[in-house]
């Protein structure tokens, strides 16, 4: 083949897709900034843009506005951004490596593991809210390692991982229910954890999880091309030199770390992890290198806006963000499914 023919092939490549992807990311970044501004500005007390700027410049640390922004709105906004990003990226990773459209962090035992450890702390160390944050993260990781261990013993196929996740979740759920029966005082604490939300969040609860989420997000980006190769199927991927089991399990662990970190301060607001990756694929196709950042952005925006609605819809009362997510996300997910006519959804 001569150079002319080669350049013809490269020229006929769909170059639009690259610029389209950049446009989508740029648009979402603008949307995220707008959502962050709204989240800081709107609430039971409305704060104008100049006041926000003045507060960030630390004009008057004793003022009410300064305290609302720095101790309530900013931690809450950062928490929503990190939680939305982490859960959406975790969902995108799991749906890709397990080749399962219904995969979300709960499918690999993350929710049940976090739930059990949260209830354990609520039952035996009820005064320690910080311990419960760390425990929820640890529980998520422990449950995933259990799924990993079972799946590895039996060949680590996608289906085995999903089934092991169901079995481990069911077993851990039984332990949780036993504790709830024996220690009924924990039921209320658990209800709050299951619904999830960002009310009363503080920076020190978000900071540690936020750093972990950032690191895990960059590792997910590094793994994204290998996840694409994994989508060819185990045998094809292996014959291309991919370490199939290594990539699959590192992806699972990264997904668990992301979801566990988010759950540790936000509770179980898992629905975002199921729908956002689908919305991302609808926008940008199936390349994980682009799905992961787009999911992070959409997840953050969606969570921020849901949290905003949760605060303002019935102000001064606040409803849990998980409820808003399900109200908005459920119909949107149905819309996506209806639009999907034999694979048209993502084309």
């Amino acid at each position, binding site marked *: *083949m001569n150079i002319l*023919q*080669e350049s*013809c*092939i*490269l020229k*006929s*490549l*769909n170059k639009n897709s690259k610029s389209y992807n950049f446009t989508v990311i740029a648009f979402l970044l603008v949307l995220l900034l707008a959502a962050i501004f709204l989240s800081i500005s709107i609430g039971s007390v409305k704060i104008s843009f100049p006041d926000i700027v003045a507060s960030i410049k630390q004009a008057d640390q004793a003022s009410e506005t300064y305290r609302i922004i720095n101790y309530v709105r900013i931690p809450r906004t950062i928490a929503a951004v990190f939680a939305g990003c982490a859960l959406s990226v975790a969902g995108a990773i799991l749906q890709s490596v397990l*080749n399962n459209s219904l995969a979300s962090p709960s499918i690999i035992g993350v929710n049940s593991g976090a739930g059990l450890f949260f209830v354990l702390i609520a039952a035996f160390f009820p005064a320690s809210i910080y311990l419960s944050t760390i425990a929820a993260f640890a529980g998520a990781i422990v449950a995933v390692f259990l799924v990993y261990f079972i799946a590895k013993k039996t060949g680590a196929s996608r289906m085995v991982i999903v089934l092991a996740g169901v079995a481990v979740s069911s077993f851990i759920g039984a332990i949780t229910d036993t504790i709830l029966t024996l220690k009924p005082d924990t039921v209320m604490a658990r209800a709050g954890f299951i619904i999830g939300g960002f009310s009363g969040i503080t920076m020190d609860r978000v900071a540690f999880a936020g750093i972990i989420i950032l690191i895990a997000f960059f590792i997910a980006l590094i793994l994204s*091309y*290998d996840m*694409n*190769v994994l*989508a*060819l*199927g185990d*045998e*094809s991927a*292996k*014959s*291309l*030199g*991919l*370490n199939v089991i290594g990539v699959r399990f590192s992806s699972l662990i990264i997904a668990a770390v992301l979801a566990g970190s988010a759950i540790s301060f936000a509770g179980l607001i898992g629905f975002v992890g199921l729908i956002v990756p689908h919305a991302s694929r609808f926008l940008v*196709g*199936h*390349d994980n290198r682009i799905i992961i950042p787009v999911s992070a952005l959409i997840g953050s925006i969606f969570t921020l806006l849901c949290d905003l609605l949760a605060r303002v819809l019935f102000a001064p009362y606040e409803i849990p963000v998980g409820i808003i997510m399900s109200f908005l996300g459920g119909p949107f997910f149905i819309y996506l499914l209806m639009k999907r006519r034999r*694979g048209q959804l*993502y*084309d």
Partner: protein
Amino acid sequence: MIKLENVYSGYNRTAIIKNIDLTFEEKSITTIIGKNGCGKTTLLRTASNLLKPFQGKVYIVDKDITDMPSKELAKKISFLPQIRSVPNISVYNLVMHGRYPYLGFSRTPQAEDKKIVADAIHKLNLEKLINKNIQQLSGGQRQKVYLAMVLAQDTDIVFLDEPTTYLDINHKLEILEIIKKLKQMGKTVVMVLHDLSNALSYSDRICLMEEGEIVIYDTPQAVYESREIDRVFDIVSAQVAAGEDGSKQYIFCLQ
């Protein structure tokens, strides 16, 4: 050159192939034939290191393949399985996956990779399809795209598991002609085929298997004349002159 020495291999501690001593001839087409369940795919998977043998060794140029790093091995052997996922991906990106063993940490294709991919697309006449999603293609077109990926992988040894199954006669013959081209490029092709007539017509060597063991490994003519195919498959075979050039075709019927 790829060599199997006293290989036993299978699944769940049950040996499917036994006592395999075999050297695949270089720059030729070898086709493995045999009844369903006789161990053809197991042999192919073991020879390409997708399955670890219980016993025995597989060598490439005197190197034990189990000692080779997976990416190094992927630069020597490509394997196209029969059952594959059909990912949501464009033709160009799928063919580019063939360059995976050569990509660095950033996984960014270099000019050389793009050139090899463009060359593979050109050789398989896929220029018009490069922006298409492979889920939109017919079975025959899809198979050509996967063969382009194998070509982009640029290995000396190519294993193909039933590359013509489920294809219509036109696509079947087109794929077999492409496989012939692979041999002309200097590649060693080892494949499993169910169509005995195609196997005998397109191969330089036939490996006939029965119950996990090799019955005969020889030229198609020698295998045909041994009548072992008739015995193993419980059929009657005949050879007929098909063209003016004296080429022969094989026909088969039940006993």
